[in-house]
């Protein structure tokens, strides 16, 4: 036994951990101080970053907001059109269809978060051999190019010659034409999205796991807690800040799904109009149909939706994220 030096259930380590976490999570008084006393110096150092963000993010957002109110010609000319684009957009069934598809995609990809929590804590088990090898294997999909991933999955999903349906055949299941059946196509893309998001989630969670003091496990072990009980009562609660971060990032990136969908389904796929995501809808209107004002309006809707969803999450986090 290595933990004999500590009294089981001693309040000291737990207390100090909580204090440490609180110190990290809550804004310190120093950060609340007004910068007025420092003059322009802080701004000087912030300028490169703020300048970059202003030029490459805020400025395009403003431009997009403006162009969403115009009827944009093919190569730059525009006429002011008021809210015409928005009126057309909210009457366009494609908008609601693509919102629905995006939500379905997001919901499926979110299933990856519990899986990632589970896998990350397995990888964190003390004494696991080849742990870093597994970590590399799980992280590889994240660094691989989406188009390369898409090409491989296209072959796996192939209805006649694909690996997936071949495997399902052994189970007596007649698999669908995954990428050419409406509904199944969205699910197929989401499965790939889930699979390729696991690596990033696990790396973030692994970092979170390292912050959980081993003493807590040792203490609970002495109290007779099973591995499962430790997972539920120590790992998951103390990981909630990481899980929260992953949730925010996953939802934002899921709402922006485009490349996987475009590459897996292919641009001449007849189910595409029924399976497109919001960003694909934006792409189609802006770059295929050359209606850039309309596309700008779609972009603003995506922007607002993501903003609202993220705001709601920050509001809800107080109920389940253990920071304070």
């Amino acid at each position, binding site marked *: 036994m290595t933990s004999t030096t500590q009294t089981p259930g001693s309040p000291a380590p737990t207390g100090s951990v909580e204090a440490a976490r609180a110190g990290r999570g809550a804004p310190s008084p120093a950060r609340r101080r007004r*910068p*007025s006393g420092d*003059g*322009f110096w802080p*701004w000087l150092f912030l*300028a490169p970053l703020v300048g970059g963000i*202003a030029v490459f993010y*805020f*400025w395009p957002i*403003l*431009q997009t907001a*403006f*162009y969403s109110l115009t009827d944009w*010609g*093919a*190569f*730059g*000319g*525009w006429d002011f059109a008021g809210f015409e684009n928005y009126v057309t957009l909210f009457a366009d069934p494609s908008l609601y269809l693509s919102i629905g598809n995006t939500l379905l995609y997001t919901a499926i990809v979110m299933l990856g978060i519990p899986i990632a929590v589970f896998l990350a804590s397995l990888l964190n088990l003390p004494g696991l051999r080849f742990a870093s090898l597994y970590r590399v294997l799980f992280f590889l999909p994240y660094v691989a190019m989406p188009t390369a991933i898409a090409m491989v999955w296209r072959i796996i*999903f*192939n*209805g*006649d*010659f*694909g690996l997936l349906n071949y495997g399902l055949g052994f189970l007596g299941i007649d698999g669908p*034409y*995954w*990428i*050419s*059946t409406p509904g199944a196509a969205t699910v197929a893309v989401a499965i790939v999205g889930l699979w390729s998001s696991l690596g990033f989630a696990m790396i973030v969670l692994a970092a979170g796991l390292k912050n959980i003091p081993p003493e807590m496990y040792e203490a609970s072990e002495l109290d007779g807690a099973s591995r499962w009980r430790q997972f539920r009562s120590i790992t998951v609660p103390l990981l909630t800040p990481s899980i929260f971060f992953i949730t925010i990032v996953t939802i934002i990136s899921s709402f922006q799904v485009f490349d996987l969908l475009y590459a897996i389904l*292919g641009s*001449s*796929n*007849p*189910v*595409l*109009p029924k399976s497109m995501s919001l960003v694909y809808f934006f792409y*189609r209107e802006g*770059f*295929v*149909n*050359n209606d850039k004002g309309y596309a700008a309006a779609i972009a603003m809707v995506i922007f607002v939706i993501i903003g609202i969803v993220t705001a709601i999450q920050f509001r809800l986090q107080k109920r389940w994220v253990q920071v304070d």
Partner: protein
Amino acid sequence: MTTSPTPRRRITAGVAGAVGLLLAVSGCSSDGGGDASEYGAPDSDLKASITYGLWDQNQVAAVEENIEAFNEEYPNIEVNVNVTPFAEYWTKLQTQASSDTLPDVFWMNGPNVGLYASNGQLEPITGAVEADDIDLANYPESLVGLYNVDDVQYGVPKDFDTIGVWTNKALFEQAGVELPDGNWTWDEFQTTAAEISTALEGQGIYGAAGGMDGQTTYYNTILQAGGSVIDGDTSGYASEESQAGIQFWTDLIANGGSPTIQQLTDTTADQWFTSGKLAMYWGGSWFRSALTDTELAADVTVLPLPAGEEQATVIHGVSNVVSAASENKQAAQAFQTFLASEEAQQQQGDAGAMIPAYTDTQDAFTASMPDANLQVFLDAVDYSQPLPVSNNSAAWNALETELLPQAFAGERPTAEVAAELAEQMDAALAEE
């Protein structure tokens, strides 16, 4: 940045400034060029540097030869070749056009020429034609028309492609079906396809294949039935003839001659053919390069498309165009004119990457697969019709991809789908 009293006020001022600037910048809407400048062949010592934008890496070697020959005449004009893969080419070109940074000379295709020409992005070749530096009679007539927008000529074709039936002789033998002689009707084609599918069903081999690509499939049958895809400013899909052209593919799938639309989405027709699982593939002359150095090549021969009410094939070809915003227009036009010359076209043809458009420069193409009867593609020029396009073709191309599969799959009656397509396409055309 000056120091102002509080950060908040500074931000407000910044936003106000940004919005003001935004309005100022966007206020200057570009009306494009298009005002035909004086054309004249430049002096041979003209010094300039121009860019040449294209999308096919396979043709770069021949292009380099062209530039070398061009530099013999104009040693001080430097031509920089800029290759962008086709998938990104048009997105990039749009961005370049919007910011007035188009390459001086670049490749243009039928579906896009209307969009660029009608928005004043392209320089007409009127001057070169009037000066007799380019003679329109040297190129396939139907293709020259493709680059004529509102009675102004913007380019001549640099190459062309027509459609034929790529045939796997070995599969005909295996199925015990006699190879057609190439003088055949729709019915004979349908029967042949179904016979092969039935005979080789156990191996998952099909006689023929439809698909979502209009240029190689249903555009041809629509023209053969006497219909049209686009007729002036309106859609041609509502006509009975056009519907017959669509029904051809519905029938082919229904009688088992072709894989289903879903199968063809997962595995495209050309993939079925190159995997040796398809006996007859409707494909363009460009498909030859996919067969180079394959085991399949020895078994392949080409047949003309079967005739419907009349014989027809879609013809298309790429053109070299000059940007209206080019700062070295004289050099760019000299290069454009050279690329259209017999010398440059012969170099292109000998390199073998495509069929050059200039009359009698095509021998190298037919010789590249001597046993495959590639002459079919050249003969087809006589009964060819240009690829149907409009000023914003992409808008209704998307409608075709969305709606027609419902007819091919037999989910809805062809007449109903065609009527809906015609209605939506007319709406899209009205917006152009």
